[in-house]
């Protein structure tokens, strides 16, 4: 196999070729590092350190030579810059953390390293994971002097989605076979949809949040993004597992091999189709692609079942009360005292806090901190925060009612395909575009997006599958069977 095609391999094939020593981890790393340089204009990476990567690759080769090495030995991956890493800087795409070097690795990073994966670098994202287009990064990507929006490889004038936009762009442009992302309100699923790749957010509590810079603690989850469900299943199996002493929200649920069920038959699989996901706000081209993919599922033996998720619309205000509230609390640690940015000029301690935070945070982050501080303040806590948490339970209960009649729920991941960079100027109207991903986030359910076709101007469309708690295996199985019968996930942007 010529090296020029290394980036067309899935994770399993790459891992197999590394294990059989057809290629070395160093060759694989060099190949992808060269690709990252070649496609720098996308802005996907915010940190690359070739020496560090090659040292990891040499270590992987040494283990492979001894017949050791984990399931992903030598496989190059990259981490969203929300995961702290000892060997690469971590910024959360914020000026607040420019130059920050973490003294520890996130658990997800440690686990993937233990499986043998080699880190290519850190991936661009929206600042503190807040955004839906990766236009909110405040850190210059590799090759640039100033912050840039990340570009969608399918059309570089369009957004890749967010907040895991760098992650999605990297996979779509084959700069890494698989990467990590995080999903709080859809930040894995929506960019996966916009970039024509596969991504999964596991059940809340499955993957440790230790070392994952916190945005909204009751919503944040780590997950893999790759070309295929199989790629995602391989990474997710390494990423999930209890981390009881370090993450108090980590569930004591054993690690699982999510590849075990991939090839199960989906004959008779009941796919719930929520009426509320197919209303007027859904773009015609997305509707057409999603409808066609559901017909494909019927051909594979699945049964479509009409269901209702009546509080879908409420998920927008509920999420945009809860997530900013939690963010305002989580981001209060950025005060210029022990780490991160500190203002140069200030009158006193209070002034230092205010100027540090004014200088370090971007507009979207400030906006969400303000919303959060307001809804948690005296006189408003019950009316906003507690009310939102109660409706959250009702939304979770609605899913349980729906799952009585179906095994998985399917619908679009986003109402439209990727829009033009700079095309959405009203930040608040952006919030409405999250409507299909927010419900599963609020309920803590696992959700996946897989490529389901193309819309207007050849832009990718993702099909979202939502499963009941702990059913990631079933979701990945359903996605895998679709990918065995179709080839949307194998399509490449022009020039890739």
């Amino acid at each position, binding site marked *: 196999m010529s090296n020029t095609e290394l980036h067309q391999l899935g994770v399993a094939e790459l891992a197999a070729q590394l294990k059989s020593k057809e290629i070395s981890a160093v060759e694989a790393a060099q190949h992808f590092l060269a690709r990252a340089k070649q496609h720098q204009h996308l802005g996907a990476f915010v940190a690359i350190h070739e020496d560090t990567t090659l040292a990891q690759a040499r270590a992987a080769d040494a283990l492979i030579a001894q017949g050791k090495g984990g399931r992903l030995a030598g496989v190059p991956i990259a981490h969203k810059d929300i995961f702290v890493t000892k060997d690469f800087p971590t910024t959360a795409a914020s000026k607040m953390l420019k*130059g920050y*070097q973490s003294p520890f690795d996130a658990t997800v990073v440690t686990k993937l390293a233990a499986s043998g994966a080699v880190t290519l670098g850190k991936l661009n994202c929206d600042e503190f994971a807040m955004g839906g287009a990766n236009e909110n990064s405040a850190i210059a990507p590799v090759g640039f002097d100033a912050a840039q929006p990340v570009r969608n490889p399918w059309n570089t004038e369009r957004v890749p989605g967010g907040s895991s936009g760098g992650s999605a762009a990297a996979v779509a442009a084959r700069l890494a076979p698989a990467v990590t992302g995080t999903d709080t309100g859809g930040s894995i699923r929506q960019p996966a949809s916009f970039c024509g790749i596969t991504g999964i957010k596991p*059940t*809340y*509590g499955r993957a440790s949040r230790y070392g994952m810079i916190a945005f909204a603690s*009751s919503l944040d989850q780590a997950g893999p993004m790759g070309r295929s469900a199989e790629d995602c299943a391989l990474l997710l199996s390494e990423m999930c597992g209890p981390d009881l*002493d370090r993450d*108090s*929200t980590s*569930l004591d649920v054993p690690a699982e091999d999510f590849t075990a069920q991939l090839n199960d038959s989906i004959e008779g699989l009941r796919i719930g189709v929520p009426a509320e996901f197919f209303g007027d706000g859904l773009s015609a081209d997305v509707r057409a692609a999603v409808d066609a993919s559901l017909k494909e599922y019927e051909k594979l033996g699945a049964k479509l079942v009409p269901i209702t998720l009546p509080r879908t619309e*409420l998920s*927008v*205000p509920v999420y*945009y009360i809860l997530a900013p509230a939690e963010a305002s609390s989580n981001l*209060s640690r950025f005060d210029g*005292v*022990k*780490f991160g*940015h*500190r203002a140069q000029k200030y009158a*006193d*301690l*209070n*002034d230092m806090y*205010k*100027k540090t*935070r*004014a200088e370090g945070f971007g507009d979207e982050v*400030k*906006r969400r*901190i*303000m*919303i*959060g*501080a*307001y809804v948690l*303040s005296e*006189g*408003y*806590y*019950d*009316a*906003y925060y*507690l*009310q*939102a*948490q*109660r*409706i959250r*339970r*009702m939304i*979770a*209960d609605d899913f*349980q009612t729906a799952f009585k009649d179906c095994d998985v729920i399917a619908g679009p991941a986003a109402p439209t395909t990727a829009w033009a960079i700079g095309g959405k100027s009203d*930040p*608040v109207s952006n*919030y409405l575009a999250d409507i299909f991903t927010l419900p599963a986030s*609020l*309920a*803590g359910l696992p959700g996946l997006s897989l490529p389901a076709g193309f819309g207007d101007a050849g832009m990718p469309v993702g099909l979202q599958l939502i499963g009941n708690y702990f059913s990631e295996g079933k979701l990945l199985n359903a996605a895998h069977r679709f990918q065995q019968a179709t080839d949307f996930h194998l399509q490449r942007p022009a020039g890739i």
Partner: protein
Amino acid sequence: MLRLTALHPVSYRRKHMALTSNDIDRIANLARLELSLEESERMLSQLNGFFGIVEKMQAVDTSGIQPLAHPVAAIQDVVLRLRQDQAWEPNQREANMKNAPAQSEGLFLVPKVIE
């Protein structure tokens, strides 16, 4: 601690008012954020736009429903664990202090806190 805020007549009245620039100043102070005049004005109109979306949420009857803090608590009891009170982190003061904006002799330097 008994929460009386939901019954407080002032909070009931506040629910139905749009934000004012005094609110923006008050919240920015709580959040320790310095906002320029232009930023404050923009924030005011954006937040008021946002709270327009939120009104629908206010109208929902949630009597008798318990708030859901940990999502998986929807289907099973989730108890916040306590781990063993055992120190297991190594002493790595230098590593932990290497990002300090100002330090001296192993101490973080900050502006005077107590007058």
